[in-house]
């Protein structure tokens, strides 16, 4: 039985769009025509961008994430089976999310860390957030161990594994826009030449808004990392990473060009 999903001016627009989309998928499944695939991909690029934006600023650049999301969208279009009765947006959303998570797992740990350690670190991050919420303060290691059901040694290992997340390349350029000298082999002669608080203020001004706010809350308002995390709406471990990154950025500004 064949149905012309494109016929039906009496249908309301969303239904007509959905029917049109199913018809396109059915046609693509049968013909595998590239032009149809591209048409389907183009229709859902907004979905890919939306999913990517949910993961933004956690590691790789937002552009990288969008690329991963768009490639995942192409895969989703290729694999989608319209006969299964699942909406494409649901299927594609999960596919894109899965690809982005894999990307984080494989690309944001720049030091090679066993997968078990990465998973432990992620588990710890979640547990830290949960316990911070429940206790109203940062949890201790034994509390984390009890909450997850592992030993304190394992908790310490998991925390240490986190330091391998988002380290910076020694070969990365120091300057903005990919210019300037590279970190590897540079002399550290400018280290320690900051002499006044005004200069710190100027360094802070160079940080992205969120990092500036986090440094300000930590060092000027004396909030703990957990308190900052709650206020800013990110995890304590993310606060920790952003603080370290901010210090590195500020330090680089004290070094001669």
């Amino acid at each position, binding site marked *: 039985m064949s149905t012309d999903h494109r016929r039906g001016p009496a249908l309301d627009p969303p239904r007509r769009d959905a029917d049109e989309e199913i018809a396109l998928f059915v046609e693509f499944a049968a013909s595998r025509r590239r032009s149809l695939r591209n048409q389907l991909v183009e229709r859902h690029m907004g979905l890919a961008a939306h999913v990517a934006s949910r993961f933004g600023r956690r590691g790789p650049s937002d552009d990288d994430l969008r690329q991963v999301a768009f490639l995942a969208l192409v895969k989703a279009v290729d694999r989608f089976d319209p006969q299964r009765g699942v909406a494409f947006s649901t299927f594609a959303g999960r596919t894109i999310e899965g690809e982005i998570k894999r990307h984080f797992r494989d690309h944001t740990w720049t030091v090679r860390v066993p997968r078990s350690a990465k998973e432990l670190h992620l588990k710890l991050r979640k547990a*830290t957030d949960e316990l911070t919420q429940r206790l109203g*303060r*940062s*949890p*201790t*290691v*034994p509390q*984390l161990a009890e909450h997850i059901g592992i030993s*304190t*040694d394992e*908790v*310490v290992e998991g*925390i*240490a594994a986190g330091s391998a997340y988002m380290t910076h390349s020694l070969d990365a350029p120091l300057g903005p826009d990919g210019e300037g000298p590279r970190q590897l082999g540079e002399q*550290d002669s400018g*280290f*320690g*030449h*900051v*002499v*006044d*608080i005004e*200069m*710190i203020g100027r*360094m802070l001004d160079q940080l992205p808004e969120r990092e500036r706010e986090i440094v300000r809350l*930590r*060092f000027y308002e*004396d909030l*703990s*990392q*957990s*308190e900052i995390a709650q206020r800013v709406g990110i995890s*304590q471990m993310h606060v*920790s990473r952003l*603080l*370290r990154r901010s*210090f590195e950025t*500020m*330090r680089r500004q*004290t070094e001669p060009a």
Partner: protein
Amino acid sequence: MAASLGAESGLSVDDLDDLRLGVGELVATVIDGADPDARVGLAYTTDGGVVTVTGRVAGSAATATPDELSRRILAAVTDSYQLDGGSFSLTKSASRH
């Protein structure tokens, strides 16, 4: 090491991160003027929920001075710290947060 000992002292995850930051700042400060092949020795002790870390650059008598950024970081993340030539010490206890 800092995290491991800190964990036994009842420090929270925040405190442990502060401890690591503090040790990192002090080590960075003392090696700033040290010979390229100098080594830094660290010793950790715990006593009643307080972690004390002492460090020394072997063979160096150069006076290390933290810059303003380091001073601000150290003041925020440690209970107290001291620098004397190529040596330092810091203490960290569980915060009231």
